[in-house]
């Protein structure tokens, strides 16, 4: 197994770092850990991180993934940055409402909406 096969796709658009998942299923803790480390490096690389995570193509999401998102959120806040989530399909969105995490995260319908929302 290659040591550092990326599990995310990263795109720069202006001051915003856009992250997309390569896996349809964000379930396994090992994977989630690796994804978290990749995003942490993106956050570290920015003075004031503006991170947009798109959930396009994501079909399954575990509670471990939610935990990782909270960790990411804390890291972004720690650097006075901003985190946005977008492209969450209704099934996945329900996971955010059941857990009330829709109160914690800034969630936008589309990537464009999310990009426009950064201060």
């Amino acid at each position: 197994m290659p040591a550092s096969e990326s599990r995310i796709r990263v795109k720069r658009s202006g001051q915003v770092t856009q992250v997309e998942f390569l896996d349809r299923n964000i379930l396994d803790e090992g994977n989630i850990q690796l994804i978290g480390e990749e995003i942490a490096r993106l956050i570290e690389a920015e003075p004031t991180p503006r991170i947009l995570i798109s959930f396009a193509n994501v079909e399954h999401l575990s509670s471990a993934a939610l935990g990782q998102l909270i960790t990411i959120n804390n890291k972004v806040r720690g650097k006075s940055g901003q985190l946005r989530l977008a492209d969450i399909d209704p099934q996945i969105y329900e996971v955010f409402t059941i857990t009330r995490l829709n109160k914690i995260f800034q969630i936008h319908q589309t990537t464009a909406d999310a990009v426009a929302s950064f201060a």
Partner: protein
Amino acid sequence: MLMTNAQPGHEAHDFDLLNDPEQVERIEVLLSDSASRNGFAKGSIFALRLSLHEAIANAFNHGHEGLPTDLTVHVRLEIAPDQIIMEVTDQGPGFDPNSVPDPTLEENLERGSGRGLLLINAYMTRAEYNAKGNALRMVYAKPE
């Protein structure tokens, strides 16, 4: 014999599972396929797969915490056209599910964990532990 009343489409699957993501995924895919063949909708399959995933993760992470890593978790799936039963049994000491904090309370909302049982309870028709607290039985009835 396993199923007392033979009924078309009924099936049951038992696994002695090691903590191996590939094996877990295989069982989740088997569940999804079987549910789909039995006419369960996409949303139901989402709920079932997520709940099974959370239960298995709990069995290994909490049930077997500090125990030998080669301990197996027993997973049983019973699939029928009208309902699906999933049982996940670990070899740990068990726990008291009533002692688990509510992750939706304001003060717990930013905790990094503690949402698995909430999701299982939200999505399943019924979810019950045995008295010892090491076996979780989840029942999902097909919506009318």
